[in-house]
């Protein structure tokens, strides 16, 4: 293993069903067949694919929010599969997730601030409530929200603001690794750019490593260092972003890239004009 590898995923597989139901065994569905990749420290690794290709399942398995059927996940040389629930909980400080739908990722009945502070209360070293409040407000400011957002409820925020709060919640424990599960898919065009820029700034500031799950490939091009393309639960191509866009090899990758709509026509046309495909 190379020195700067932060996370390595080997032969990850997830099969749903197949267990005996009340009458008949349920149908087996293989959501993830065989996924392997490694993410280096400080990079943004993109995971792209159509819906149903298994990208979200992979993201959640890395955090062990879903338990893999087989395969291994190695974080800083340590296998996550061998950890007990308690040990895994402790590790969650270092690995966090930002969800796609910030509307349902927050409890509607609690204030934004209390939900961000909750992790500090649970995992932080200092239980002093004044200090926790101060730290939470500082984090709100880091992601571009005002201090008075602490006492607001999720529905009082716009989609972009809620996603900023989601990022604040993920960052409050000073993690090293963030899974970004389609963090901007539900946002407006102008807000999308704001959030991506924020994520890029935060990455520099806190030396974060990202796994960016997306189906809008145009942003992947700007944001990711390397990309893995998933299709039907398998990685079909992994390469640097530049290489992937300039020289796509797999048919599915070409299809995905061609479907990007640009002002000059779809990217397929742009490619054809330049004889790339």
């Amino acid at each position, binding site marked *: 293993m190379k020195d700067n590898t932060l996370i390595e995923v080997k032969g990850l597989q997830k099969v749903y069903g197949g267990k005996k139901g009340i009458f008949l065994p349920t149908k087996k569905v293989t959501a993830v067949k065989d996924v392997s990749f490694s993410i280096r420290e400080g990079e943004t690794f993109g995971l792209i694919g159509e819906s149903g290709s298994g990208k979200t399942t992979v993201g959640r398995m890395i955090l062990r929010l879903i338990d893999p059927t087989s395969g291994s996940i190695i974080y800083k040389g340590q296998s996550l599969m061998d950890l007990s629930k308690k040990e895994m909980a402790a590790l969650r400080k270092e690995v966090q997730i930002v969800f796609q739908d910030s509307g349902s990722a927050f409890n509607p009945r609690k204030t934004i601030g209390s939900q961000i502070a909750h992790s500090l209360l649970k995992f932080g070293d200092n239980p002093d409530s004044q200090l926790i409040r101060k730290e939470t407000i500082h984090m709100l400011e880091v992601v571009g929200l005002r201090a008075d957002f602490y006492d607001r409820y999720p529905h009082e925020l716009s*989609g972009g603001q809620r996603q900023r709060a989601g990022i604040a919640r993920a960052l409050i424990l000073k993690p090293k690794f963030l899974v970004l599960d389609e963090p901007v898919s539900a946002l*407006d*065009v102008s807000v999308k750019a*704001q959030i991506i820029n924020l994520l890029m700034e935060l990455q520099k500031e806190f030396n974060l490593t990202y796994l960016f799950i997306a189906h809008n490939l*145009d942003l992947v091009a*700007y944001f990711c260092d390397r990309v893995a393309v998933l299709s039907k639960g398998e990685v079909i191509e992994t390469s640097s972003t530049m290489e992937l866009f300039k020289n796509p090899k797999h048919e599915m990758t070409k299809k995905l890239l061609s479907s*990007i*709509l*640009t*002002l000059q026509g779809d990217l397929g046309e742009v490619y054809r004009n330049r004889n790339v495909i």
Partner: protein
Amino acid sequence: MKFAASLKEENVLLNIENLSTKIKTADGTLTVLEDVNFTVEKGEIMAIVGESGSGKSMTINSILKLLPKNLIEEYKGSIEVAGKDVIALNENKMREIRGRRISLVAQNAMTSLDPSYRVGKQIVEIIVEKTNKTKSQAKEKALSLLGQMGIDDPERIFQSYPHQLSGGLRQRVVIAMSLACDPDLIIADEPTSALDPTVQLQVLDLFTKINREFGTAILIITHDFGVVARIAHKVAVMYAGQIVEYGEVGDIIDYPEHPYTQSLLKCIPDMDWIFKEGVHKKPLFQIKGELPNLLELPQGCRFSSRCHLAKEECHVTKPLLLKKQHRYKSNHSVRCVLNERSHER
């Protein structure tokens, strides 16, 4: 200002003038639409582009009279569909327009289909209800429509329940349904936003095909300028309930005049960068701030607080949607104080 003035009357399908809609809420009155003017002609694809809260969907709801009746504070102006003013029509007359003259393709195909009936039955139901065809004639028509939507085995799809179909297939079924009574105009509200990029492209091309083969006019609502560039002839850019720029797609993409349109276009990653070096990981262009609160709109231009060109007068003077003078025979209009000034000179 009448956009239709320069057009032949008989070619105008939908003409909206000075449309203004206000909705009562618990917090106060929302100005959801103000001074909306546009025209859709026969056989044309027009797009309304804007972010959430810009009034795109409210425009549709106003056209089809789907506004929540007890909450309407103001609903005035004129909406002419084939010469009839929709605002004055009663619910019975409105039912003749909906589905027959204008049909709607909603964003989420799952919600426009009833999960407990086979999709074929649902298409047949509409045809029988809206035309005087018999059930077997209606079935024939439904199957042929499904075939025209690029569905390989219409018979199997006809017998399927909505949940058995993929998102793309469901959207095709809904589009087939919208064509059931040969409408003059299809209104499509974000028809591809929920779809995968590869499927989105297929569905957009299907709309283009429908437009070419049946001559059906299409009013497509979207937040994505990429979609506009792909299929539309004409576009209205909406911001906070107003049209801020209006014209031919080519004109607007090549010569955007309103600072908001310019910014929105810049937000779309330019894919040509791939072939240049050193663009990767540079910050994306972003529009600072957020949409103004529709409860307390600014006195002057609604974009002024986010505009990088805003001058003092922008915050106090309400700009009007005015035609650009300089370009030959174009129908390009802009709502910007800075543009008005360049007129006077």
